[in-house]
């Protein structure tokens, strides 16, 4: 431990002597002339378009149609075992348990258990229109981080009111103390001759349902 304390002092000492005599500006003085807002006529429409650009499936759901849409999405994915984390609306469970034999709420599920799940259905905390990004802070309805990672299909419900215009607005809506996952489309790689391939380690299918209701 003493070695580590002296390394700390040594590095901080080197930093201090390196910057001695240099001009020190304050954080508030940093020029921020970039856009704080990126207005769009149809913000939710833009969000859907940009998410779809990442080869995700995007659906706008009519009022009252959400549970039907969730069940249909899980069927489309060919799912038999589905997971809807603790905290999603009770109506989702009811709809899912009437259609699927295995519905898990993720409480106490381990990685091996997650491997047997076909599709996971979660809420989100923020959507970012300009980039087509969904943010999960893994609060209620979103499950712990592995829940949306290990299964091959992720069905995500985003409320229209959660859609931010751009990255600055999106970040302002988040609590940095929480662990977070920003998701833009399904898992992808461009490592082989820069040809984009969807689905490497994370979910190969991302299905986004955009709803006018609070989920």
């Amino acid at each position, binding site marked *: 431990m003493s070695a580590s304390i002296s390394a700390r002092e040594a590095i901080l000492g080197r930093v201090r002597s390196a910057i001695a005599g240099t001009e020190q500006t304050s954080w508030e003085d940093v020029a921020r002339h970039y856009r704080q807002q990126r207005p769009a006529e149809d913000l939710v429409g833009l969000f859907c378009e940009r998410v779809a650009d990442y080869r995700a499936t995007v659906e706008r759901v009519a009022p009252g149609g959400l549970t039907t849409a969730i069940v249909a999405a899980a069927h489309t994915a060919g799912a038999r075992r589905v997971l809807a984390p603790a905290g999603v609306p009770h109506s989702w469970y009811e709809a899912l348990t009437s259609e699927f034999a295995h519905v898990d709420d993720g409480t106490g599920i381990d990685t091996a258990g997650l491997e047997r799940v076909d599709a996971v259905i979660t809420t989100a905390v923020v959507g970012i229109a300009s980039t087509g990004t969904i943010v999960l802070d893994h609060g209620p309805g979103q499950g712990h981080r592995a829940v949306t990672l290990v299964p091959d299909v992720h069905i995500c419900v985003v409320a229209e009111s959660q859609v931010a215009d751009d990255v600055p607005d999106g970040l302002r809506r988040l609590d940095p103390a929480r662990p977070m996952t920003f998701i833009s489309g399904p898992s992808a790689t461009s490592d082989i001759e820069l040809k984009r391939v969807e689905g490497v*380690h994370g979910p190969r299918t991302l299905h986004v349902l955009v709803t006018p209701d609070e989920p």
Partner: protein
Amino acid sequence: MPAFPQAAKQELANSQLRHNLANATSTIRHKRAEVVGELDDWAQLREAGAAIKSHTLSNLDTYLERFEEAVTAAGGTVHWARDAAEANRIVVDLVRATGEREVVKVKSMATQEIELNEALQDAGIDAWETDLAELIVQLGHDTPSHILVPAIHRNRAEIREIFQQEMGKVGTPAPADLTDEPARLAEAARRHLREKFLRAKVAVSGANFAVAETGSLVVVESEGNGRMCLTLPETLISVVGIEKLVPRWQDLEVFLQLLPRSSTGERMNPYTSTWTGVTPGDGPQSFHVVLLDNGRTNALADEIGRQALRCIRCSACLNVCPVYERTGGHAYGSVYPGPIGAVLTPQLRGTTSEVDKALPYASSLCGACYDVCPVAINIPDLLVHLRTRVVEEHRGWQSKPMDALMSMASWVLGDSRRLAAAQKVASLSRRVIGRKGTIGRLPPPLSRWTDARDAPAPAEETFRTWWERNRGSDSR
């Protein structure tokens, strides 16, 4: 490791490499230009990115202490490492303390820089790279040649061969009917790595950003291998260069716009993970950050050179560099290749070795790298600054012939008749040294120039004589 001029000469002879690189860099250049063009405030974002980083660097002691405090408060442990050996020792000890003999790794330039994999190997610990390109490099017993796409020099046929020959030796083998389709190759990697992800108890990562105010770390990736490593294991060790700090959470709004568009040419990368200390019940319950100096404070001490520490490792400068496009990354003999490597590495390592002395010269100073840099690092200026430093450091043996040459040059250039006479001699010399239109090998010490370059032979006629012959009679 040969210095750049010799290494480049070898690499240039590899036509497969040049073909792969030309394809890859032009594709990514166009994608970048398209998504950067979408933002009408790109110049302002770039200016803010540069200003935030400069501000952080000039107050780095304060922000490092603040970061340490925040991480500790959130349940993590901060370690400090003066150099590569110290950082490796810390990581090896932390892994040993868990009793584990293997780690999964998220692609990280910092751990490559300190050669952590080799150190772990020496300690009897297997380190598995989980980024697809890093996996290709590791299985191919190769070294990375690009910051973002380390296997950019490999084509699909080569990758298929590597997978078939090597995967079975270290885990799940590649399927027997593996083709060279990128989707099939990615599928083989998925199957090979999944076994390792599900088994691993310890992960090692770097970080793209570290937020001083909150103690949050940020990892930007595409494949989900990062998420696997950051969330499934019980222990997470992140090796982070001290220049990765940004003051506040809000600052990420600038860098999360600049980085993906500059690096992969996407509006956003598929996955970004942020975490702050440990979260009970979610992810690793033991979390360590190793703050790495390893020469960064040397760069910080150089007021001009310091701006290289603004680098966010996007690799846009590699993709536009005419020199990188032809030689590839291996020629630089540096973990950081391309224009940024040519200015960063000699500052981190010093300019004592032949490789590091040569790096500031591995450029034509065309300036394309400066134009695309999202944090406005003036790479051409830095190259010249470092060339001066290299020359000054070696004045001892170089000054006399160099001074003599320079004073002769100034004597010649100082008078138009002398210049005309010198040019005439040069034109005549074409018959001797440049029959094929280029200058071949000259005797030493001039061979230091001609061995690595095709210089055009002097013209048969100088511009001055041409002018006199054609326009000499003009009354003006």
